[in-house]
């Protein structure tokens, strides 16, 4: 199962890059011209996200560097320990929606310290693999089209993240068992 999926992953983009221009050509599209026409908007789209990303990443950076994140972890960890959630992975859980780079750094550090095949190592791997940087994605996607009122989408994103987190802890306990 994994082999097939992994091969699919490796081949997906090269196949798209082979088939799309070929089929377009067969259907009478001026391929080079159309490519350039589409690509033209790339620069503007990317640059438009800058103010939104700066706003969000500055706030996250200050929040983390000030020690406020560590305080939050200190307050929450005794409570979460009661429900079988190891305190070691809490910084990762809190960082995950905020910053992809930082949470990957935390996950790498935990895997290095406890070993990839320990319970904590497997749990943090599942957590890293299963969730996305919600704040970053929202800021980037909405920013690229100039939307600044997100309505309820932060709440639904965070609820989904929280569900994924609980599911990760549950399935890791079931399959790998804490030792």
């Amino acid at each position, binding site marked *: 199962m994994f082999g097939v*999926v992994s091969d699919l*992953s490796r081949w997906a983009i090269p196949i*798209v*890059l082979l088939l799309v221009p070929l089929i377009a050509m067969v*259907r009478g599209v001026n*391929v080079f011209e*159309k*490519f350039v026409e*589409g*690509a033209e*908007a*790339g*620069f503007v*789209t990317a*640059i438009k*996200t800058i103010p939104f990303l*700066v706003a*969000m990443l*500055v*706030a996250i*950076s*200050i*929040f983390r560097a*000030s*020690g*406020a994140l560590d*305080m939050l972890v200190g307050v929450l960890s005794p409570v979460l320990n009661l429900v079988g959630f190891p305190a070691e992975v809490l910084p990762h859980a809190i960082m995950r929606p905020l910053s992809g*780079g930082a949470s*990957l750094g935390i*996950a790498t550090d935990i*895997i290095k310290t406890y*070993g*990839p095949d320990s319970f904590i190592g497997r749990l943090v*791997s*599942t957590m890293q*693999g*299963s969730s*996305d940087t919600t704040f970053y*994605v*929202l800021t*980037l*996607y*909405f920013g690229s*089209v*100039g*939307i*600044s*009122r*997100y309505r*309820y*989408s*932060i*709440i*639904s994103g965070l609820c*989904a*993240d929280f*569900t*994924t987190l*609980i*599911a990760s802890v549950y399935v890791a306990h079931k399959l790998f068992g804490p030792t």
Partner: protein
Amino acid sequence: MVNYIWLGMMVTGVLVAAINGHVEVVTKAALEGAQVAVHTAIDLIAIITFWLGIMKLAETAGLVQALARLLQPITRFLFPSVPKEHPAMGAIILNLSANILGLGNASTPMGLIAMQELQKLNRGDPKEATDAMCTFLALNTSCITLIPTTIIGIRLIYGSADPTEIVGTTIFATAMGMTAAICMDRLLRYLYYRGR
């Protein structure tokens, strides 16, 4: 909502730094954050420009529309406000497929293209998210992942006996998250319109 979260992080950050007696880290952190943001955007230029070109080809050749037609039963349920065979549908499907396969640097440009198409359908305030955008982002951030490529690589580097053993647990966790995302999106949308 985003106003409160943003303000909360800024204010607590500065206050905590002041209480801890190292208020000077705030200035440095602010600058670093801004730099990371600009670097990210600059890096995006290359990959977005490239995928926008490919997408234009796929769209002109009718491939995006064909894909949208193929997955219509699912997308009609999830995005009732988007006309069938609209380019937004194709881009949404491509973005989610790239996510599922763990192809991070293809999924982001597709997602931005999808947002642009959805914005074209926005009949209300251009600064306010539409229903379809909220649904799309809920799905995007919680999407089922078959191959968490990065973390498998890290497990390999640190000598795991079986780096891919977390694939099953990841699929389970993301499936739960995606279900929750769809339910929450529907529930919050209902509450949103009732509260107005």
